[in-house]
């Protein structure tokens, strides 16, 4: 078994972006990915590249997202140049749409607070009549909304393919069908071995645990506290339609391929990634309320995916204090943060740079304070 400089456990959007960031800068990288039917949050990602309203309870996260979104354009071009895969970035602004004056006002207050605390996150509130100039097909139930100039969308699945393709081109090994059960640390040699359920092992100087729902258990083996809670998001997808929605919204977006994604729910249901009739109906009605013409569009797929969240909804990026060289990542915004994961997190965890100062707040230790209470924000 050839030893690598870096092993990344998890080949989803988060793991693949970090691995790509390290591999494209010359490190020898291996990615251990699960099989065809694994729980894959990446497949249920709604696909928004979204800044507005992020970090209402944590200005550092708002700034982190702002920087990530700012790097997306260049990152998209880089992936396109290297792999020929278009990750579908459209970043010309997006809307949040509200059904009542009360929720619109709440929204305005939140966005003002974030901009005040984090800086550089401008927004504009609009009446329905003004929104209609951009989205002529919104229905009468939409009373107003907000506009964020840096918001946009990408295709999560093509982004994942672009990352895997980029990894392959950079010489990384992607090993699929692997369930990693344990991380072994050889302190004397400063090496890590990822051990699969069937006993195979892969060694490397450094290791990143980005295994979604599996992070908590593996991270604890290298002394990192990375608690995760699981939420299910259900998404509806229509047949491909001729373009009619020029901008993404919080309730629906039309992809570059033409299908409309309608989403998404946030449910606390444990490890059930199924879909439910109740939520499908709720999402469908809400979509038709937002864009009445969608009544004539056909629902082709419904999707349920489990997303790993931390108790406060903000990410964990952390190096182990007891096993230096081991890292854990918990993050559910794999699309929005893809560029900064590749550009900043990958080089850091790969050992090419020091810990970036702006990730210091995203330490899992914040969840060890017994007196702290957390409200999930996402």
């Amino acid at each position, binding site marked *: 078994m050839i030893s690598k400089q870096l092993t990344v456990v998890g080949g989803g959007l988060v793991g693949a972006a970090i691995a790509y960031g390290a591999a494209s800068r010359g490190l020898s990288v291996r990615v251990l990915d699960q099989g065809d039917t694994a729980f894959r949050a990446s497949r249920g990602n709604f696909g928004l590249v979204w800044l507005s309203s992020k970090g209402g309870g944590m200005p550092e996260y708002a700034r982190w997202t702002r920087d990530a979104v700012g790097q997306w354009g260049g990152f998209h071009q880089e992936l396109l140049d290297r792999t020929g895969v278009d990750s579908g970035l459209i970043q010309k602004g997006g809307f949040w749409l509200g059904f009542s004056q009360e929720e619109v006002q709440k929204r305005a207050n939140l966005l003002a607070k974030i901009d005040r605390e984090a800086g550089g996150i401008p927004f504009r509130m609009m009446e329905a009549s003004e929104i209609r100039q951009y989205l002529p097909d919104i229905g009468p139930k939409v009373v107003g909304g907000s506009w964020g100039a840096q918001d946009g969308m990408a295709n999560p699945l093509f982004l994942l393919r672009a990352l895997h393709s980029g990894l392959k081109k950079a010489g990384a090994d992607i090993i699929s069908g692997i369930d990693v059960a344990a991380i072994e640390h050889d302190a004397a040699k400063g090496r890590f071995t990822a051990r699969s359920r069937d006993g195979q092992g892969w060694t490397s100087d450094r290791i990143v645990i980005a295994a979604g729902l599996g992070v908590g258990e593996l991270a604890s083996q290298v002394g990192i506290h990375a608690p995760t809670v699981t939420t299910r998001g259900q998404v509806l997808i229509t047949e491909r339609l001729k373009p009619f929605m020029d901008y993404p919204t919080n309730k629906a977006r039309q992809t570059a391929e033409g299908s409309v994604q309608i989403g998404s729910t946030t449910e606390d249901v444990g490890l059930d990634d199924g879909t439910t009739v109740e939520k499908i*109906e709720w999402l469908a*009605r809400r979509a038709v309320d937002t864009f009445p013409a969608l009544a004539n569009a056909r629902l*082709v*797929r419904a999707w349920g995916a489990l997303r790993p969240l931390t108790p406060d909804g903000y990410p964990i990026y952390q190096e182990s204090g007891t096993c230096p060289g081991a890292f854990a990542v918990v993050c559910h915004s794999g699309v929005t943060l893809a560029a900064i994961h590749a550009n900043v997190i990958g080089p850091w965890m790969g050992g090419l740079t020091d810990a970036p100062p702006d990730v210091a707040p995203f330490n899992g230790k914040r969840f060890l304070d017994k007196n702290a209470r957390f409200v999930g924000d996402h």
Partner: protein
Amino acid sequence: MANNVNDLVVIGSGPAGMAAAVEARALGMTVSVLDEQPAIGGQIYRRVEDAPEALQMILGKDYGAGRVLAEEFRQSGAAHIPGATVWNLTEDGVIDYVDAGGTRTISATNVLIATGAMERPFPIPGWTLPGVMGAGAAQIMLKSAGAQPAGSVVLAGCGPLLYLLAWQYLRAGVKLAGLVDTTRFSTYVTALGKVHGAVTGRKDLVKGLGLISRVRLARVPIYSGASDLEILGEDHAEGIRFRHKSKSREISAGLVLLHQGVVPNTQLSWSLRAEHRWDAAQLCWTPVTDDAGRLGETQIHVAGDSRRIVGALASAIQGRLSVLAMHERKGGTAQPGHKAELQRQLARYTALRPFLDVLYRPLDEHRIPADHVTVCRCEEVTAGEVRSYVDLGCLGPNQTKSFGRCGMGPCQGRLCGLTVTEIIAAARKVAPGEVGYYRIRPPIKPIHLGSFAQSTS
């Protein structure tokens, strides 16, 4: 809504569904039968209740047998709900469907999935062109509308339905430009090895061979042992090219009817996350059930071709046997000897199946096509693209689907699923059973978002 719980809801009103309903009614169960089509009969007995006499003559005696069952069904007192598209089924017997009025829900103590079969996809160059259809599709044109080919027509592939349609066309006076048969003589020999256990199926065998010889006698050019089928034409089918006796041949025809057997319609059983296994004899996925078609410990049974391809007569018997098992589970008993008689009939009707499975096994190149051939008709993904995703590390169809949208269109993978499984298996050099299938989720059929707004709940 839930206060009206049926003892049995049957999905599909083909032979298995109709017979099950009749059996259940005889046992005093309350029964509703949902079907997407406006009339009962399924595809095999399509329009069986009101087919004109001239058409019945063309279609033959086996089709007429469906009439008896349809009459029994009508008299049974089972409720028939036509035009009902089932889009969701749960393990505890809740069924969501859409009809002209919107979304509706029906509940049952027992559910029978009797959704029948569909023609096996035939991914060859040009198979998406107008003028190329399934032979089964053309037979539906004949049954449902009395429609016959207007110009030159060629039939190609293998399987009993191909010869049956040829025979029916001859009776209707349709001239065939050719019958391109991919069955090889050497396969007859292998298949004959399966006949020894199939003496009870001899009658069916004789009947089948009789069809073939009658088509021959009608001086239809038959090209046996053909391979490497390819549709000619740019915007429309203009004919077919194939290899025959190591020569390349072409037949021109504006209508090419392809067929290489039928495969179970398994979307509903997959959507329940029931266990399925790759059936190496029939080259398709089949749900794992007990002898009565029960899925695990659920109250859901599968009967007929949606369990495994057995044909119309055996399907009807399976439907009845599933109902008897439901009845017995509730402590009921059947009439003495009835069950044994049904089992005897089932054995007779399925005796020939192993022979047919070997004889009419579709050729590898017509299931696992070359790189340039489109496998996903909806999203227009080629076999080569799927293979390139395997190169990137994809192990199964759900990963290739997310990398390249293969299987994401309105047909929901029905026309590419088997092909993709086999392409990946061949590329990875593993058995198809190890590769798996698409994760099928509701909606089982595409439904208008507006249907929910009309919902009466």
